[in-house]
């Protein structure tokens, strides 16, 4: 390992959500760097086939422990965090309710951090967040969105339980950083794509009404291929001198929503209708107003804030990621797209 690191290859690293879409790639990245003391936390009902395949590939001389549990249980968090130097916290809940999202994101993170502080040897807590925490409501179309941009201040109005959970999770991490000296790094990946995740990002469009409505148009997508994202996450876990920092994760090579959809349709055809942004915005305004007028008879799933966040269109920068973490896009776009599209064949 040539790069400077805050931990040695023998230090124990905990990865939560280790059998998930990004988690498996993070585990492979760590193993390929020679980390041989890993604790992999999974949900009891989680599927382990993909994770076990990766472990078989790097089986020699490793101390790998898979433990299953619930991060809402403090006991399970203690078992997970005991003697750990670095935590890469990927586990995420995709609850539709705000309370459920809060429990699975914020409460689970609080439990894990407290166990880490009590029983671990905390050198770094990597909190994997999301672009869903940003609000571009007051930004111009096409403006640059980076780590300094405003965060969503009304997730309830945006009807985005996931974003609310992630915002609260970040708040908890920062609070423990401030009050308890927790060394942390926050990563906000854009739209992560790759094999194993066939659904298109909501930034491209939606199929809420039984057919695909393309809403992204010529917007640039904040794409990051899963292995490139994993590289950023692992660098965030190891790099010295970045405690307390936040990084957006997007690849160097960009695609527009239209280009991405065309490539996807080439792999497997399906019907879609394009709705330009002004019409999407108008529809969202009408929906939101009716929702308010009818006291939520229609939940405000389409609204101005969501419309702006997903379909207004921004440009994205990974300057900080490259400058401070030394991240480089390992998998080129052409190779990444080939790998992504192969799952539809």
């Amino acid at each position: 390992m040539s790069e400077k690191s805050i931990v040695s290859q023998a230090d124990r690293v905990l990865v939560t959500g280790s059998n998930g879409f990004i988690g498996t790639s993070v585990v492979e990245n760590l193993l390929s760097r020679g980390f041989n003391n890993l604790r992999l936390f999974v949900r009891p009902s989680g599927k382990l086939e993909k994770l076990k395949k990766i472990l078989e590939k790097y089986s020699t001389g490793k101390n790998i422990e898979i433990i299953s549990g619930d991060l809402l249980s403090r006991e399970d968090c203690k078992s997970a965090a005991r003697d750990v130097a670095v935590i890469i916290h990927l586990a995420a809940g995709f609850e539709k309710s705000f309370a459920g999202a809060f429990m699975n994101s914020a409460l689970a993170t609080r439990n894990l951090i407290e166990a880490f502080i009590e029983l671990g040897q905390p050198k770094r807590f990597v909190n994997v967040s999301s672009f869903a925490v940003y609000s571009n409501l007051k930004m111009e179309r096409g403006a640059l969105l980076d780590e300094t941009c405003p965060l969503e201040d009304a997730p309830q109005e945006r009807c985005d339980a996931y974003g609310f959970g992630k915002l609260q999770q970040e708040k908890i991490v920062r609070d423990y950083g401030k009050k308890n000296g927790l060394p942390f790094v926050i990563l906000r990946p854009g739209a992560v794509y790759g094999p194993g995740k066939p659904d298109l990002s909501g930034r491209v469009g939606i199929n809420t009404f039984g057919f695909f409505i393309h809403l992204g148009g010529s917007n640039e997508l904040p794409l990051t291929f899963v292995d490139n994202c994993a590289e950023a996450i692992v660098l965030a876990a190891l790099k010295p001198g970045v405690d307390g920092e936040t990084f957006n994760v997007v690849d160097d090579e960009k695609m527009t929503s239209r280009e991405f959809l065309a490539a996807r349709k080439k792999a497997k055809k399906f019907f879609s209708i394009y709705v330009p942004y002004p019409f999407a915005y108008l529809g969202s305004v009408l929906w939101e107003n009716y929702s308010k007028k009818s006291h939520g008879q229609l939940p405000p799933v389409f609204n101005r804030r969501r419309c702006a966040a997903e379909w207004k269109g921004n440009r994205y920068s990974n300057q900080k990621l490259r400058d401070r973490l030394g991240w480089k896009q390992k998998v080129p776009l052409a190779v990444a797209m080939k790998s992504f599209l192969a799952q539809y064949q």
Partner: protein
Amino acid sequence: MTLRIAIIGCGKIADQHIHAFSRIGDCEVVALCDRELLMANQLGERFGITACFADAAEMLRATKPDVVHITTPPQGHFPLAKQCLEAGSHVYLEKPFTITAIEAEELIHLAENRNLKITAGHNYQFTLEMLEMRRLVAENFLGGKAVHVESHWPYDLSDASYVGPILGSKTHWVRQLPGQLFHNLISHGIAKLVEFLGDEVKVTAHAHQSQRLKSLNGQEVQDELRVFLRDENGTTAFFCFSTQIKPGLNFLRICGPKNSIFVDNSSGTLLRLENKSYKSYLTFFAPPLVSARQHFRNARKNIFDFLKGRLHQDSGMKELIERFHQSIKTKSAPPIPYREIILTARIMDEIFAQIKNSVK
């Protein structure tokens, strides 16, 4: 009179209660309480409620609410409701009302002794189609006492966010209930039957685990339940809970001596099944046309209700809460007779006792 409300238990269902309050009016949430203070805070932050507590006793002392809505897991229902009644607050308890019928009886006895009201969150009894059913029954559409009643209640196992954590942990609160998955889900379906049954009900219950749940490593959890009931007057009832029947059946059929009623709670519709006979081949032509006319009227009614802003997905909860609050203000009878709450709990006790050892 504006009722001052407190909520204990700030999980998923608490949001629905607050939304219902906003549509009812004449009430305000004065306190939120959850033993995990962060849960109370997140709810308060989203709805602009500042009085958040982690201790129920402290909350009751500090805010003295008129009504407490208890939306915790069922294990907390009895002690918390008792505490609230003893502090002088009326109580709305989410379903299942209590863990056992003895607890249900004790709470109701306590409420009556203290001149307070209590109700169970059997909100599906107050949806628009159920209110229409009750209107027809009151008009004697059935032609007398119900002869037979059937209730089906479904659950879709593909909702992994609910089933996943339950199957994943033996210590999950659902797994700690005597009736496990059934205990948390069937009270709505049983409650729909009991208003047609007398007090002495014989219960015969069978349960098993579906192949689907087995494949999900369901361990000792059962997910298919069939119950036959018969009261002292000979009225019979059938209850079916299923995770496997597709499409999921959620209905109530009430068979009377003259006519019958079919209430489809999935689509919010009601069919009047009238005892008419037709000559010759009209037997095959007329009834489908009569049904088609009723289905058309149901669709028209639902569209009209939607346009009028009455067809909320949780209209039953809003109606039940509104009626409960009204009963407090006017000192009138609560919306669900106590007899029905206790009978529902007794039937559930008996079901769980009978199926206790049926999983191998």
